[in-house]
C-alpha cells in the first residue's frame, strides 16, 4: 500500500481509512477523532496530534446505535455512532465534538456516556456570527487548547500554532488547485476521485495529506485517462457525503460532477485561516464565520433592522453563483439526508436563489443506504433529460 501514489493511494486510504492512523498510533502518535467541520484541526496539528475525521459507513447496517439514539435522526450521525459502539474507533485516543448541529451535540453526550473515551472535549460552537459570538468562540477554542495540552503533555505555542495554520492553509490551497482541474470540459478529475481524495485527507496527518495532494495534482495535470466528456455538468449541494455511492450513481449517468458544496469537500477546505497576531483570533473567525454551513445564522444587513429576501439570499448563497460560473455548472443537485433539519429548512431557499439565477435544480432526500439509490437514479436521470433538452 505504501508504494501506491497519487489517486491510487487516495483510493486505498479511502477504502481502508484507519490503516494509516493505526500505524501512526503504533508508532506512538496520538490520534483524535473529530466530528463535523468545526473542531479546529490546526490546534491538534500544533501539538503533533493527528486529527482523524469520524465518518459513517454506508454499507454497515445500523444496529447498535438504536439502543441509545432514536431512529428519527440524521442517519449519518447514527451510522457514525454505531461504528463507535461497534468499536471501530477504539484505536483513537479520544474525540472532540462540536455543536455543529443539534444531533451532533446530543450525540456528543451520548458518545461520552456510552463509549467513555479517555479524552473527550465538546466545543459549544455558537449559532450566530456576530461580534459577541466570535469572542465567545475564541474563548471556547482557548479552553479546547487547554485540554489538548493536557493530553499532549506540552503547550501550544504561538509559533507552533502558526506553523500548523500554514500547513493547513497549504492543504486548502492545494485542494483549491485540485478543484480547478474540474473546470475544463471534460474535467481532469471525476467527482468520485475527488471525494476519495477528500476522505483520504481527513484520514491522514496534514503533512502526509499535502504530499498526497501534490502527487495527485501532478498525476492529474498530466493524465491521459481523464474522465470522458458527459452531457451535463453538475454541482451537488447539501448534507454530508462521506462515501462515493451517490456521486458514482450520478457519474454513471451522463453527468460529470464538477463542483460541490458539501462538508467533505469544498465547504470544509475552501476558506483559509487568516494568520492573525494571536492565531486564535484567526481560527475563531475562520471556523465560525468563514465556513459556509447553513448551521450558522448570519445577519445579512445593518444589524438586522430591515430585511430583504433577495439580498439575504445573495449574501447567503452568493458563492454558489461563483461556483456555477467558474465551473460552468448546468444543474444543481440539492441533497439532504433524511432528518437533517439544517439542510431541510434551507432547501426551498436555495431553490429560490438558483431559480433567480436561471439554474435548474433538483432536490433529493436519502437515507444513507446503498440500496435506496435506485429510485434516486430515476430522478437524477430524468433531471438530466430535462437539462439535455432545456
Amino acid at each position, binding site marked *: 500500500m505504501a508504494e501506491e501514489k497519487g489517486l491510487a493511494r487516495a483510493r486505498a486510504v479511502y477504502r481502508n481509512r484507519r490503516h494509516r492512523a493505526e500505524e501512526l498510533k503504533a508508532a506512538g502518535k496520538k490520534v483524535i477523532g473529530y466530528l463535523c467541520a468545526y473542531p479546529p484541526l490546526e490546534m491538534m496539528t500544533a501539538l503533533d496530534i493527528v486529527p482523524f475525521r469520524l465518518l459513517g459507513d454506508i454499507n454497515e447496517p445500523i*444496529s*447498535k446505535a*438504536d*439502543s441509545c439514539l432514536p431512529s428519527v435522526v440524521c442517519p449519518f450521525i447514527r451510522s457514525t455512532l454505531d461504528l463507535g459502539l461497534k468499536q471501530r474507533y477504539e484505536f483513537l485516543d479520544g474525540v472532540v465534538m462540536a455543536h455543529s448541529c443539534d444531533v451532533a451535540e446530543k450525540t456528543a453526550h451520548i458518545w461520552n456516556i456510552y463509549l467513555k473515551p479517555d479524552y473527550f472535549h465538546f466545543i459549544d460552537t455558537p449559532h450566530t456570527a456576530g461580534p459577541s459570538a466570535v469572542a465567545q468562540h475564541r474563548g471556547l477554542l482557548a479552553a479546547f487548547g487547554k485540554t489538548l495540552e493536557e493530553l499532549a503533555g506540552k503547550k501550544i505555542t504561538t509559533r507552533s500554532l502558526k506553523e500548523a495554520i500554514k500547513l493547513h492553509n497549504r492543504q486548502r490551497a492545494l485542494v483549491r488547485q485540485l478543484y480547478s482541474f474540474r473546470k475544463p470540459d471534460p474535467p481532469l478529475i471525476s467527482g468520485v476521485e475527488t471525494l476519495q481524495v477528500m476522505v483520504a485527507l481527513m484520514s491522514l496527518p496534514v503533512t502526509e495529506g499535502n504530499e498526497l495532494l501534490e502527487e495527485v495534482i501532478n498525476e492529474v495535470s498530466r493524465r491521459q485517462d481523464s474522465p470522458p466528456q458527459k452531457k451535463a455538468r453538475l454541482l451537488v449541494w447539501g448534507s454530508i457525503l462521506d462515501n462515493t455511492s451517490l456521486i458514482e450513481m450520478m457519474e454513471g449517468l451522463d453527468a460529470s460532477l464538477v463542483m460541490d458544496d458539501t462538508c467533505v469537500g469544498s465547504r470544509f477546505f475552501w476558506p483559509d485561516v487568516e494568520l492573525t497576531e494571536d492565531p486564535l483570533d484567526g481560527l475563531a473567525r475562520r471556523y465560525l464565520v468563514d465556513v459556509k454551513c447553513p448551521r450558522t445564522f448570519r445577519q445579512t444587513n445593518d444589524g438586522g433592522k430591515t430585511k430583504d429576501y433577495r439580498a439575504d439570499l445573495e449574501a447567503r448563497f452568493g458563492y454558489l453563483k461563483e461556483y456555477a460560473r467558474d465551473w460552468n455548472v448546468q444543474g444543481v443537485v440539492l441533497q439532504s439526508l433524511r432528518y437533517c433539519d439544517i439542510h431541510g429548512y434551507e432547501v426551498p431557499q436555495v431553490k429560490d436563489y438558483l431559480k433567480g439565477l436561471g439554474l435548474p435544480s433538483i432536490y433529493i432526500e436519502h437515507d444513507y443506504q446503498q*440500496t*435506496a439509490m435506485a429510485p434516486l437514479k430515476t430522478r437524477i436521470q430524468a433531471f438530466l433529460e430535462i437539462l439535455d433538452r432545456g
Partner: protein
Amino acid sequence: MKWFMGLDIGSTASKGIITGNGRPPLYHRLPSKADYRAAAEALSSELLAKADLRRQDITATVITGHSAGDLPAKHRRIADIRCCARGIAHLFPQARTIIDVQAMSGRIIRLSAEGRVTDFISSELCAAGGGRFLEVMANILRVELDDIGPLSLKARKPVHFTTGCAVFAESEAISRVAEGAAKEDILAGVHQALADKLAALVERAGLEEGCALCGGGALDSGLIKAFQEKLGVNLLVPEQPQFVTALGAAIMAGETGRNEDKEQP
C-alpha cells in the same frame, strides 16, 4: 370439570387452545380472513367441536390479539404481550427474553421467572419487522411458505438487503433475481435482514440468558438460523411456536377462572 380456553386472534391467523383436567392442550388454527369477530366465533366453535365440549363447559376464556366490542360472559380480554410471556414461561421457565415474530410486527419481550413482562419493544412504525415480510418474499419468488426455511438453509451467498421497507424490498428482490441471484440466497438475505432488524431491538432490551423465539416466524428454520448466528446464542423454540400466545391466554383463563370470585368487574 374445569376447562379453559385461550383465543389469540392474530392479523393473519387465529389460534385457539383448550386446556384443563390434566389433558394435553388441544390446538386449533384458522385464517383470520377479513373479519376478526367472525374469526373468534368460528375458532371457538371449531375448538369446542374438536374437544367435544359445549360452550357452557368452559369455565373461563381469555381472548387476546385483535378483538373489539362487547365480550360474551366468562370471557376476558388480556393484552397479547402478557399472554405470550405467560405461555413461554410455562414452556421454558428459564427464558428471560422472547423474540415474537408475528405477521405484522416483531417484538422483544423480557420476562421474569413468573412470566411477568419486565420490558417490551415492538418494531411498530414499519411492517418490515414482521413475518408478513417473509410472505411477500415467498410470494414473489413463487415459493411455498413452508419451503422458505429449508431453502434458505441451502444458501451459499446470501444477498444483502438494506432497504428498510417491506414493500420496496420486494422490488429489490426482483432486481436481484434479474441479476441472476439464486432464490435461496435471496431468502437467506431476507432472513438476515429481518434478523438484523429485530436483533437491534434485542440489543436495546439487552440480551439475557434464555432467549426464546415464538410466533409464526419461528416456524421458519431459516429465520431461526439467522437469529442464532446474529445473536450467537441457542434459541429456545417451542414445538408449536404459533400457539404460544394462545397457550398463555388459556393459562391466564385458568388463573382468572380460579380467582373468579375475587375478580373485579
